[in-house]
């Protein structure tokens, strides 16, 4: 390999490893002053992210043998398998910290460890594998990649459902849903998994160098982000009363965990009398006061009016037959909108939307769709 090219590839890989080591030190040992006492509670995945950084030290065989085919094969296989898995562990710890995992669920790490260990030894020149090992490695890594890719898709969908669920428990209008950290990074593990796979199959030192440069830049950005002493924690409200879809493989949710019990299995905390009283008051707020016509209404408003906390409110809403706060308010708004459309077919749709409490006409249309109704204009035509 020409000397300049060797230097470029070496520098790229060295920068990648060093920024990873720095990231590891930050994640494990840096505490922003703003969150000193509660840091581990607010940012639960710090150890997992730290491990992801620290594990990249295992790229050392390639740094010492830049451009060599065996070392390249090892380091690319390592990237595909370990990166994907560790990102799944990270997401699990960050978005679902209340779910506890048994040690046995980490068996998913065994296939990569078993398949990478001989390659690791060969990269260091300690053993010499037979000729067919390259073909076998490509086959094994391809199978494992497809499996991990599928798991990253499941994780992304799970994060999306959990974020939506948290939003529906608090807000009555999809326009009000805050764009949280989860929405922004739910597809990141999947994206990184396929990028690593593309790099693996290209099997070229130049592609590896590009990958190193790209992730060095990402690491530098992430270190700067971590060093911000005022960064906000991701706040998924832990009202995990929906049943997370059980995954057949390891790192799955523990279905017996109380925090992930389905709505049907939730232990009711309110006595029947208390529930009856609260549901009558809630019905009065909805049917008589039309509280749902208030724009930007949130669950906090109902909690204050009823004088109960979030858990009791959720129980009252679900025992009354609604799936969430968003569902309850949407149902009433849609019914009210339909009656207004029938009574005043000539009124502008936007005015009807605002009178019903929607923040926009499109928000009203979305609510109709979410309730399985026809569009508002269809009701107008019928009227």
């Amino acid at each position, binding site marked *: 390999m020409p000397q300049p090219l060797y230097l470029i590839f070496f520098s790229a890989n060295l920068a990648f490893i060093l920024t990873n080591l720095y990231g590891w030190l930050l994640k494990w040992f840096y505490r922003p002053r703003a969150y000193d006492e509660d840091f581990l509670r607010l940012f639960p995945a710090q150890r997992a992210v730290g491990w992801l950084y620290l594990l990249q030290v295992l790229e050392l065989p390639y740094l010492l043998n830049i451009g060599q085919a065996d070392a390249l094969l090892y380091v690319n296989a390592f990237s595909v398998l370990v990166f994907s898995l560790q990102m799944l562990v990270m997401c699990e710890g960050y978005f679902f910290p209340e779910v506890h995992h048994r040690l046995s669920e980490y068996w998913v790490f065994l296939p990569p460890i078993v398949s990478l260990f001989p390659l690791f030894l060969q990269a260091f020149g300690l053993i010499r594998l037979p000729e067919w090992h390259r073909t076998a490695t490509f086959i094994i890594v*391809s199978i494992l990649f497809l499996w991990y*890719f599928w798991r990253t898709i499941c994780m992304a969908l799970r994060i999306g459902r959990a974020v939506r669920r948290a939003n529906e428990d608090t807000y009555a209008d999809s326009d009000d849903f805050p764009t949280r950290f989860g929405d922004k990074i739910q597809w990141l593990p999947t994206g990184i998994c396929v990028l690593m796979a*593309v790099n693996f*199959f290209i099997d070229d030192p130049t592609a590896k160098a590009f990958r190193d440069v790209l992730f060095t830049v990402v690491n530098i950005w992430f270190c700067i982000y971590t060093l911000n002493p005022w960064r906000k924690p991701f706040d998924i409200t832990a009202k995990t009363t929906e049943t997370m879809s059980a995954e057949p493989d390891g790192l799955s949710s523990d279905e017996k965990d109380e925090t992930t019990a389905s709505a049907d299995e939730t232990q009711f905390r309110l006595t029947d009398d208390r529930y009856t009283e609260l549901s009558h008051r809630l019905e009065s707020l909805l049917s008589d006061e039309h509280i749902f016509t208030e724009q930007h209404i949130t669950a906090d408003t109902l909690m204050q009016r009823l004088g109960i906390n979030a858990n009791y409110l959720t129980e009252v809403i679900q025992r009354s037959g609604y799936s969430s706060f968003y569902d309850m308010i949407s149902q009433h708004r849609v019914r009210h909108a339909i009656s207004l459309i029938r009574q005043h077919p000539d009124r502008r749709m936007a005015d009807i939307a605002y009178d019903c409490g929607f*923040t926009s006409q499109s928000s009203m249309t979305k609510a109709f769709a979410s309730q399985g109704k026809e569009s508002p204009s269809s009701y107008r035509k019928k009227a």
Partner: protein
Amino acid sequence: MEEIIKTAGIAISSVLALAVLFVIVRSQWTIWRQERRQEKQHIYNK
């Protein structure tokens, strides 16, 4: 055999990468649009 697996792997993973990129761009576009709408609402309410 190795070359066949590599070629097939590049093809499949590239298609998957493009699909994921499409999903990411679309979801980020939706988030950006929602944030703009919320900003306008906030300014209007002021």
